[in-house]
Structure formats: C-alpha cells, structure tokens
C-alpha cells in the first residue's frame, strides 16, 4: 500500500502553518487546499496576481477576468487583493511567501528540482516555477516516487534540465516523506503500509541514516 493523490495532498497540507502565505502548484499541489487543517488560516497566492484565492466558481459566478495560474476559473474571498505580475513576483522573490508546494518530474539528493522540460519532447516552459523555488521560504515537492516503469524519480542527480539547484526542503511521495539534509535524504516517515526498506529500494538517491 502507498498513498494515493489525495492522501499525498492531505499529508502535504500538514506542512501548512497558521498565518502563512502559500503558493500551490498545478496538479496534486492544487488538491492541498482541500485538506487545510482545522484552525489553520493560510492565504493562497496565485502568481498571476492574486492573494486570497477562493474555491472554483458555480455556473452563476463564473468570471473570465478571474483565473488562477493554471488558467482555471476561480473565485475571490473577503480578504482578496489583486496586483500586477511584477509585484506578484516581487513578493515571491522578496521571500514574502512562506512556502511553495510544487510537483516534480525528478528530484535529486542535494535538493535539485526538475519539473519544466523534457528536451526534444515537452517544451512548454517554466512559467513561475524557477522564480518560486528561488524566492520562497520553504519548497515542498509532491510527486510519485517512481515512473510508470518503476524507475526511481528520486535520484542522485537529475537527468532533466533543472528548475532550481539545491532548492528543495522536503519531498512527499506516494511512499513517504524525505528531507534534504547534509549528505543525502533523510526518511521522515513512510506511507501507511510501506516499510523503510521498500522506500529505500525505490530510491536511487543516498539515504542518510537517522
């Protein structure tokens, strides 16, 4: 057994702290907003120019002028503010955003992240990911531990072009939670029904003994 997408998102939500301003990436990270713990108030930033992102709209309050960074229609909240892209990335680069939770294609044991390009295959662009990993206080990655061939995506060195070098603090996968520490990755916890041995077997990166 391992965590599914929603369980990974629920585990990532435990990283949130009261009063934080947070940026959630596209994919599983977006699901994190469904699991914000009781009593914790966080403000979600959308890097296209919004703080205080609300839930998806109903048919009645759909607004083409109100979208998130994934270009999905969303809603505003009483505390919402809007600003332009230069100010949005000013607050990201300026370290005002406490944490970003992002997806990944590959990660490495020294905290490198690759999530924007597969040469010759997928050329979509980095969007705001490079700015986020360079600027926010804490970078948490949520990803599947292995690819569809069962090969580890938690590597000694990334093979894909990097989004950021030595930028990751914590990695949450379907098999467990790992921290980037001196000399490699440290197991913080394993997913329900997953042993440390199983997690280590699926990991190419160096695991540092606790």
């Amino acid at each position, binding site marked *: 057994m391992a965590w599914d997408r929603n369980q990974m998102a629920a585990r990532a939500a435990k990283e949130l702290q009261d009063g934080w301003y947070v940026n959630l990436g596209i994919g599983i990270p977006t699901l994190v907003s469904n699991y914000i713990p009781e009593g914790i108030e966080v403000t979600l930033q*959308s*890097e*296209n*120019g*919004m703080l205080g992102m609300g*839930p*998806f*709209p*109903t*048919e009645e309050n*759909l*607004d*083409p*002028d*109100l*979208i*998130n960074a*994934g*270009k*999905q*229609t*969303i809603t*505003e909240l009483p505390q919402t503010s*809007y*600003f*332009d*892209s*230069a100010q*949005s*990335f*000013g607050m*990201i*680069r300026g370290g005002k955003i406490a944490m970003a939770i992002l997806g990944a294609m590959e990660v490495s044991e020294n905290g*490198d992240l690759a999530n924007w390009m597969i040469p010759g295959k997928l*050329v*979509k*662009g*980095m*969007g*705001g*990911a*490079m*700015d986020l990993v*360079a*600027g926010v206080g804490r970078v948490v990655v949520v990803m599947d531990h292995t690819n569809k061939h069962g090969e580890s995506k938690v590597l000694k060195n990334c093979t894909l*072009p*990097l*989004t*950021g*070098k*030595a930028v990751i603090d914590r990695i949450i996968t379907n098999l467990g939670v790992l921290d980037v520490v001196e000399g490699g990755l440290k197991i913080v916890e394993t997913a329900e029904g997953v042993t440390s041995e199983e997690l280590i077997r699926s990991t190419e990166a160096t695991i540092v003994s606790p």
Partner: protein
Amino acid sequence: MKKIFNSAEDALSGILKDGMFIAAGGFGLCGIPELLLAAIKSSGTKELIFASNNAGVDDFGIGILLQTRQVKKMISSYVGENAEFMRQYLSGELELEFNPQGTLAERMRAGGSGIPAFYTKTGVGTIIAEGKEHKNFDGETYIMEKSLVADLSIVKAWKADETGNLVFRKTARNFNPPAAMCGKICVAEVEEIVPTGSLDPDLIHLPGIYVHRIIKGHHEKRIEQRTIREV
C-alpha cells in the same frame, strides 16, 4: 492631446513596422489585448518579436498571428497551450526565448523604469543562467538580467479615462501594467472610457503617463479552463 481613437486599426496606424518588438499584456487568455492583436493580424505586419507571458491558443490571442506566420520570435514563460506554436518552434520556423515568469515581468517593469539590468537568484544553476553575468551579494549568487524596452506595448484594461489613466479588473491586470510601462508607445484597449474626473485618483492602477492611445471595444474574453465547483 487627444488619446482616444475610433478603432484598433486607427490607433495602430503609423506605428506598425515589420520586425518591430512588441510587449503584450495578458496571462493565458485573461486580460489580453484581443482587439489590437486582431488589428495587427489584418495589417499584415510581419517578422514581429513579441514579449508576452504566453502565446495564446491556436485561434485566439497571439495564436492568430502564428497562423499567419507574422511572428519571428517569442519571449515567454509558458507556451504549452498552443499546438501551432509547438509545431513552428520544433521545425525551426519560430525563435523562442524562455524567461522565468517573474524575470519577464521584472524585465518589463525595469525597462519602463530606466533600469537597464538587475540581479536575481531566479534561474541560478539552470540553463537560464548560461552566458549571463554571475555576481555574489552577501554570500548568495545572482545572475544579471537585462531589461526590455519595446517599440510598442499593447495592453487591455477595464476602464480608462480620457487622459489614459487605467483601471484593471481582478486577475486581468497581470502583465498589463509592466508591459505598458516598457513600451516607447503604448496603446490600450478598454471596455469603457469614462469622463476625466470620474475615476477616484487614489484607485488608478496605471497612470496615464504610460498610455498614449486608447480604444474602446467589445471583448470576447474567452475562458481557457472553464472550471466549476462540484456541488
């Protein structure tokens, strides 16, 4: 000096030139200058260089200028929604310069603010940093990014007054203010032109000093990812 023009074609007359560098506002299809892009298409101007966060979709936004091969080069952060873009890029017909989104916004803001370059941590240790000056400040490595000054800026706002003061609406603001700032000439398209004095001066998002020509028109405002809450 009168800033209000009757149509997008009028507002662009005498400005458009083959090979010119245009900065465009918008994020995805939200807040894009759709009327001015349509007028550029019908003008037939070609070899254009665009700084724009995205490249539209195949049949809307900058995508309509890709169909007619009017674009030579794009400076963008994300182009994943445009199949024709991908085809032209992979076949070598179109040049592409990827910029991290915040770097692109700041290059525009800086260009309009008299700042020729700035240092940022964004992209250090990635292919974005290759060939750029690296500099150490207080033990941290930064790369130098040069600002952008465009021949023309095209932006979309919600409201303008007759002097070009602009107000944007919700997340349709996005790249529009920095794009407007970095152009030698800025043309803005709006949904409504209100009499001078009717906007609250404290609530103006972009002062009219950055805006040279204004047109009013009807906007399609196409939605890219229509997402509805499950009830």
